[in-house]
């Protein structure tokens, strides 16, 4: 299959692995930011094939994982209302709130629907004028353009029965939080190719210089990841804290200008809570004042809903690369995909889920 097979070529992968072995002279800790990259690494066993001196730690780039518990509880409260059609990306439905998830809300009679695009929610709103249609607008910079477009379109058409429950977050503030954390071990980053496709990579340049870390945007296929790891190792070995793009077929320095314009037309930068991590200042997006009437948090009175994280769950440390999933005392014991303590165990981009699905209780060597 074109654009896939060439990036999964085992022979090419072996060449990159050989080159990584030749280049590495000491121990390096590299974080892949995106959970999609984590899954590709663990699923393809790339971590088993790298020299022992290259340690990959897994980053916070899993939108499902970092959506705060309070947002899940608010989603559940909205979804259980009779007049509401609650719409969401599928991945959010299995994320545990305090006592249930959106699947359970659906089985209790809530009209909860899985969509592939927020623009589909808009169509549902047009088709169901007597219902309130709410879209769960979660994600990083990847989902922000389409979510912004849905709101912008709704405003343009004057659609009144549509709103969004927003939990949009951004990568660079999370990188800063990780680098500032006292337990930080990250020496270089693989940046998420699809985030950079939207935002470009120029916003990583100040991070690289300020914290003296190389940042390498790359993709999700094994060859992309290995090429990105090799580039990061080369930069580390040479002591160069630069941003070098390894995903040239998709990513440019300035990114997708139309998408960025749409985001800034509808959203503004705001403080955001990250599940397991806590408040990161100026790390998220919220609706601008002129679009406030599309904010589900304002439309439905939700301010009284508060939620507390499980004390057993250490997903915050996992999401910051401080703790490997299988080093968590609850991993595969109190915490499994059937009975998850945190979202990292159920999301298809969660690091705990990747370890559980592909490595659990099993010596892969």
């Amino acid at each position, binding site marked *: 299959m074109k654009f896939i097979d060439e990036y999964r070529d085992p022979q090419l992968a072996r060449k990159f692995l050989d080159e990584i072995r030749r280049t590495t002279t000491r121990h390096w800790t590299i974080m892949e930011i995106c959970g999609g990259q984590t899954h590709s690494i663990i699923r393809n066993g790339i971590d088993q094939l790298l020299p022992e001196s290259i340690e990959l730690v897994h980053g916070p780039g899993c939108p499902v994982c970092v959506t705060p518990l309070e947002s899940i509880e608010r989603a559940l409260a909205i979804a259980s209302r009779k007049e509401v059609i609650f719409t969401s*990306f599928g991945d959010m439905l*299995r994320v545990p709130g305090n006592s249930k998830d959106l699947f359970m809300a659906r089985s209790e009679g809530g009209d909860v629907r899985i969509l592939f695009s927020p623009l*589909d929610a808009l169509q549902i709103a047009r088709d169901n004028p007597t219902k309130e249609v709410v879209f769960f607008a979660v994600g990083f910079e990847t989902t922000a353009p389409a979510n912004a477009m849905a709101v912008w379109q709704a405003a343009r058409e004057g659609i009144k029965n549509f709103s969004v429950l927003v939990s949009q977050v951004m990568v660079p503030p999370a990188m800063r939080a990780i680098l500032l954390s006292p337990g930080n071990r990250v020496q270089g980053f693989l940046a998420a190719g699809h985030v950079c496709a939207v935002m470009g990579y120029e916003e990583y340049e100040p991070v690289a210089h300020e914290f003296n870390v190389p940042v390498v945007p790359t993709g999700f296929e094994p060859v992309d990841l290995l090429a990105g790891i090799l580039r990061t190792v080369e930069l580390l070995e040479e002591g160069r804290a630069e941003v070098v793009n390894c995903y040239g077929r998709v990513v440019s320095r300035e990114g997708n200008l139309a998408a960025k314009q749409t985001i800034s037309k509808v959203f503004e930068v705001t403080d955001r809570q990250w599940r397991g991590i806590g408040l990161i200042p100026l790390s998220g997006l919220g609706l601008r004042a002129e679009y406030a009437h599309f904010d589900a948090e304002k439309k439905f009175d939700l301010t009284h809903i508060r939620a507390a994280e499980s004390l057993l769950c250490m997903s915050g440390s996992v999401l910051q690369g401080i703790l490997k999933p299988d080093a968590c005392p609850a991993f595969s014991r109190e915490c499994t995909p059937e009975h998850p303590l945190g979202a990292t165990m159920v999301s298809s981009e969660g690091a705990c889920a990747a370890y559980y699905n592909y490595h659990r209780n099993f010596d892969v060597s």
Partner: protein
Amino acid sequence: MTIAPVCFTPILQHETVQMAHGAGGRLSQSLMQRVFMPHIHNPFLDLLDDQAKLDLPPGRAAFTTDTYVVSPVFFPGGNIGELAVNGTVNDLAVGGAKPLYLSAGFVLEEGFLLAELETIVKSMAEAACRAGVMIVTGDTKVVGKGQRDRIFINTSGIGIIREGVNLSCRNLKVGDSIILSGTVGDHGMAIMTSREGLSFQSRITSDCAALNGMIGSILDEVPLAIHAMRDPTRGGVAATLNELAVSSSVGIEINETTILVKPDVRGACELLGIDPLHVANEGKLVMAVAADKVQTVLDVMRTFDLGRDAVIIGSVVDDHPGMVVMRTVYGSRRIIDLPLGEQLPRIC
């Protein structure tokens, strides 16, 4: 002004299913005569008794049941009726039985188009004919609009198990070869890509087919060499292999390079972030076969269209009992797990 007399005779020629079609009265009879009997008839059903009276050949009987709720009802490569016949035929056949008789129970939603019902019944009759089984008894109920999604079908089946054959998911032996009869994920992705809400088009068609012909020929040739057989439906090949490994307390090791996925299916799985090994099949076979007879089995399978792409995907090992492990194309290893539940497309 004169008022014309109104005649309250019941309308028997409805276009859609009415509540009265399930009430046992004249409309029920009309439904039988108009929709079911022109397509499904045999000496057992034609008697219209409340039960079929069967003389079973000697041997142990296999008995199975399954309920079909697929949506959409019509999908590329088949429909719910064909699926209901083939699925139950396959459940009998993978137990080493020769499928003989089926029952068919229909739950219809009020308002369902009779023309569509007739298409479904017709393809059930054709599927039964192809598989060499008879639908010998049946039932129809109608529920109010909105209480069900158009049509559900239950089929049960009886077959007679071949003498000397002992197929069970508990029979895997260390050293057995694991054979897969062809590509994975066709049915599940045909359904998923034809559902409303997915705005991309594909040419993926379901692999829905009856396997009893091919299974019969395999068992004719090497009845004792086959230790277990399963059709990897819901949960896909991954779920089937896990069931076999757990039931027999053995490990299964498979090789990624041997798993065949059609390009369209692979593309759709890539787009949706779904593992083809977790996607349902409706005309595929997974077998554990004694290693010394594996070539004979492959030779037999490859004489059938359904087994043309049959291949050894792995073997039974004494390591990691209850677990399925895959050697990746890169030489690393990973667990092949049971899917948790519904396959959920990811956010990004």
